[in-house]
């Protein structure tokens, strides 16, 4: 059996006890077991040492007397016992397979140093911080690239460029580090990583960063800089860069002219940046002067040290680190792998519910996701993710966005993918299909990356927009498909006969047939999809998991009061203004209700969709104008709110007396649940999955779809018996707590995922 390489994970820390504990917890989830953890603690002023006391049996603590990153790293190298020394910042969290990938790279590819990408995942400023970066011998750098081909002819003064790793995510063979003397202790904060990479290269070693082996960074403040602000000791960067350019420029035979010009350019660039932030009013005048003087000081001292002082490197002969027989590693992870529940990388919270089996690593797909504006599928996916995290699972969500980012929100890592239309050129004529397939393929590429970095085991895709189609066809991972209203049904409702929609419908059918499991939110949805796509459900495993939502606090529940003098009823409609939502039936019912109860107030909240459902095309009017022109006598009692935020919607639910949504078709009817959450009675239609949510005559009333008179009569009957309004509201709230809790929904999905995975495992073993 081949000897496994051992790793020493060195964490250099000062004043960041709260983020350090999160890193230590996350290291417990590493798939690679043969590693020790060394924490090199500087002259810290917070409670870092008290926090580390809890890990006394599992880590080794080394003290560094000064706030000097280079020195701190060298102390880590001196004490390391592993074949590989891996560095990670104390405000970062590694992907689950970080060490596994690093060991594989250093073991098999003849590398002496490597490191992966770094993503800033704080919701305040998510971005790709580092990927396949390069640096020149004159401190010119590019931090983010798609591939090395982008910089095959680098732009810059220097003639010598190499791939370099970022200090937050780098690893080296210990022997290589010792041979070059470790880090130059001149670098107290920055450029230590790049300088080492250049010295290793000069020594004939092979150093190359990679695209994967991801680390997630949540930038914390330090003595040198305040996170998310412009406040910092930027002169230290200038000083380090100029020292770097002089030392490495001479080492790599750059001309003195290039070195000098490189230093001047760096200084000027920093100065220009200072001027920019002053003009943008991000800093005050006195702060600018301080920065300006600091730049001069940094440049002069950097140049002086660069020319006249020798490097301060780790002396191999003086240290006890001569590579002899290894001492035994103090293994960090004594527990079996994959046994730790998920952890929130920003707050450090772990789920409080006891997990019932090994935690899963799940990928959910959803084109829209909070904090962006969401409806339907996005809302459902968010609640699934939240619930699955509470049950102990790690959740990754792939969604559409403007830029490529990873962030962490409410229990899930959210991977945003911007639109890239670089495939399926032959299908460009079918716009919707072209877009959907390109996105589906991008999702697949991301899933491949998540398998490599985060070990995801299963993908859950909505049927809608076929996000998971390419992955399902590739067979890389089992795909569970959540059923919604089929696009064929919607096309039929809107009388849309475009080829584009026809073909997407056929693709939905293929996705459904390729799924390892079909999950419907209601029996009606399952039957509808089965019928419209002629699925043979005997061949495809399937099940029903009802939607669930987060119950509001009891204080928020406000059923109809027992006694209300001079009741003026408020009726709420919340949803897109479109034919499918029954808006026309509501319009016709309003005057009938007002005839009996003229004081009734109708609130209609939701975006006008008359452009998309062709109402405007046919009538020439949007829905609001249409109502105002057809029923002018009712206008004073009807308020159109347009689109409302989640907070505003909650307030509307809380303050209404009756919720009405006469949709012609709803696969489930999440909106009724949202009203029931606040103890409100609801009126819906006998269609789709609505009867599975609303109990007729118990939690609300159901009428036939497309029957405005029946709708009006239902409203009037409830207003005539206000006591029934209260009873139905309370019954609705109890039904929600009993059957439609989001954790119950999450448990349903968890059961399905475990079943699918166990079947996949037994197939691969057989």
């Amino acid at each position, binding site marked *: 059996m081949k000897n496994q390489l051992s790793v020493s994970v060195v964490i250099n820390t000062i004043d960041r006890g709260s983020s350090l504990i999160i890193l230590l917890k996350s290291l417990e989830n590493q798939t690679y077991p043969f590693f020790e953890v060394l924490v090199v603690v500087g002259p810290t002023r917070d409670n870092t040492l008290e926090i580390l006391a809890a890990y006394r049996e599992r880590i080794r603590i080394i003290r560094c007397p000064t706030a000097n990153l280079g020195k701190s790293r060298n102390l880590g190298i001196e004490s390391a016992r592993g074949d590989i020394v891996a560095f990670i910042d104390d405000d970062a969290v590694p992907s689950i397979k970080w060490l596994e990938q690093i060991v594989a790279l250093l073991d098999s590819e003849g590398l002496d140093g490597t490191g992966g990408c770094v993503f800033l995942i704080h919701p305040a400023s998510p971005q790709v911080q580092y990927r396949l970066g390069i640096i020149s011998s004159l401190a010119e750098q590019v931090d983010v690239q*798609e*591939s090395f*081909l*982008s910089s*095959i*002819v680098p732009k810059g003064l220097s003639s010598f460029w190499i791939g370099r790793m970022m200090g937050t995510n780098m690893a080296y063979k210990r022997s290589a580090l010792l041979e070059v003397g470790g880090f130059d202790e001149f670098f107290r904060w920055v450029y230590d990583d790049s300088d080492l990479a250049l010295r290793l290269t000069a020594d004939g070693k092979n150093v190359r960063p990679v695209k994967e082996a991801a680390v997630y960074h949540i930038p914390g403040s330090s003595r040198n800089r305040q996170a998310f602000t412009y406040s910092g000791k930027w002169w230290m960067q200038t000083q380090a860069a100029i020292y770097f350019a002089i030392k490495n420029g001479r080492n790599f035979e750059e001309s003195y002219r290039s070195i000098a010009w490189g230093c001047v350019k760096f200084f000027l660039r920093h100065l220009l940046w200072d001027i920019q932030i002053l003009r943008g009013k991000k800093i005050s005048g006195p702060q600018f002067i301080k920065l300006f003087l600091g730049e001069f000081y940094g440049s002069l001292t950097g140049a002086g040290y660069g020319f006249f002082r020798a490097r301060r490197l780790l002396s191999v002969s003086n240290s006890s680190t001569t590579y002899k027989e290894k001492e035994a590693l103090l293994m960090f992870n004594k527990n079996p792998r994959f046994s730790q529940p998920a952890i929130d990388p920003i707050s450090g919270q772990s789920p409080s519910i006891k997990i019932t089996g090994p935690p899963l690593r799940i990928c959910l797909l959803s084109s829209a996701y909070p904090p962006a504006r969401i409806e339907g599928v996005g809302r459902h996916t968010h609640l699934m993710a939240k619930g699955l995290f509470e049950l102990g699972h790690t959740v990754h969500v792939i969604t559409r966005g403007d830029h490529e980012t990873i962030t962490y929100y409410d229990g899930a890592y959210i991977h945003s993918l911007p639109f890239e239309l*670089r*495939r*399926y*050129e*032959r*299908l460009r*004529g*079918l716009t919707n*299909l072209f877009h959907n*397939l390109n996105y589906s*393929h991008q999702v*697949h*590429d991301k899933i491949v990356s998540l398998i490599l970095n985060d070990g995801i085991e299963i993908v859950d895709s909505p049927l809608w927009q076929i996000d998971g*189609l*390419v992955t399902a*066809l*590739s067979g890389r991972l089992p795909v569970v498909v959540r059923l919604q209203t089929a696009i064929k049904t919607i096309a039929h409702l809107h009388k849309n006969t475009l*080829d584009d929609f026809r*073909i997407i419908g*056929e*693709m939905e*059918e*293929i996705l459904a047939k390729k799924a390892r499991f079909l999950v419907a939110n209601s029996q009606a949805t399952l039957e509808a999809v089965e019928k419209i796509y002629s699925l043979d459900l005997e061949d495809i495993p399937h099940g029903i998991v009802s939607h669930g939502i987060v119950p509001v606090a009891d204080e928020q529940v406000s059923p109809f009061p027992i006694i209300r003098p001079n009741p003026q009823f408020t009726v709420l409609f919340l949803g897109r203004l479109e034919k499918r939502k029954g808006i026309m039936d509501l319009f016709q019912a309003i005057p009938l209700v007002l005839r009996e109860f003229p004081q009734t107030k109708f609130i209609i909240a939701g975006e006008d969709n008359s452009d998309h459902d062709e109402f405007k095309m046919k009538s020439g009017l949007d829905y609001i104008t249409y109502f105002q022109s057809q029923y002018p006598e009712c206008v004073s009692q009807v308020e159109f709110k347009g689109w409302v935020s989640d907070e505003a919607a909650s307030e509307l639910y809380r303050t209404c007396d009756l919720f009405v949504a006469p949709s012609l078709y709803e696969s489930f009817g999440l909106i009724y649940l949202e009203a029931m959450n606040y103890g409100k009675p609801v009126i819906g239609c006998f269609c789709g999955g609505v009867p599975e949510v609303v109990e007729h005559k118990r939690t609300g009333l159901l009428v036939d779809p497309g029957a405005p008179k029946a709708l009006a009569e239902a409203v009037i009957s409830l207003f005539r018996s206000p006591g029934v309004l209260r009873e139905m509201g309370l019954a609705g709230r109890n039904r929600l707590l009993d059957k439609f809790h989001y954790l119950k929904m999450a448990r349903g999905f968890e059961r399905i995922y475990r079943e699918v995975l166990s079947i996949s495992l037994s197939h691969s073993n057989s």
Partner: protein
Amino acid sequence: MINSLKPENIIEEIQFELAQGLIRKEELGEAIRSVRNFSNKIRKEILENYPLDGKLRDIFRKQFQLIEMLTKLIEENALLTQNLKIMINHRRVVNPGLDRIHLDNPAVREAFASTAGEDLLLNQNYYLLNQEEILKVIAPKTLKIDMPITKGRTSLTTKIKSFLKLLYHRPAFFYTLQLGEKQEKINTIFGYWLMKLYTNSQMQQDQINRLNEQLSIPEKGAEKRELKDLL
């Protein structure tokens, strides 16, 4: 075309894109262009600005010629790899004079049964699609470098100078062409063998699938087949 588009066609497109791999063709093409531009830039800088004697100048010129040849080779190799990928994934072989021939054509199979590389070369039935056409189909703007030529009035002296320059470069062109022709033969053989291996593997896969069907695990309620029933 749209009305005849079937789900199977879309699935083929998806599988083709899955097989394409991760490196973007656009990046490779742009990178090759950047290298060529950079080479031209430093060539100009060195040859025009530095006082070099005849022999040294010659050495530099030849070095730059070599760079140009290598860049061209990489470019052509990348194009050829694209062509081969298309052929392998779409299972098409086109002859300018004939209709499309699929690999399940007996004539095709017979041709691939030949083991002598020279025979394949001499086989006039199988040519790669013209590269220009393939590029038009997949991504016309990637590896093709447009060279706009503007007609201008040149003096007689300039024409004579150009003629002499061409004459001077003729040996380099000759050897480049020789190299290219040899490479083309090698690549063609490589391509044909890939096609042959692909055909064989398809046939084997078909056989495996047939056998699997016969030996498949029975579903619930179905009778269990004994091996003796299959014999």
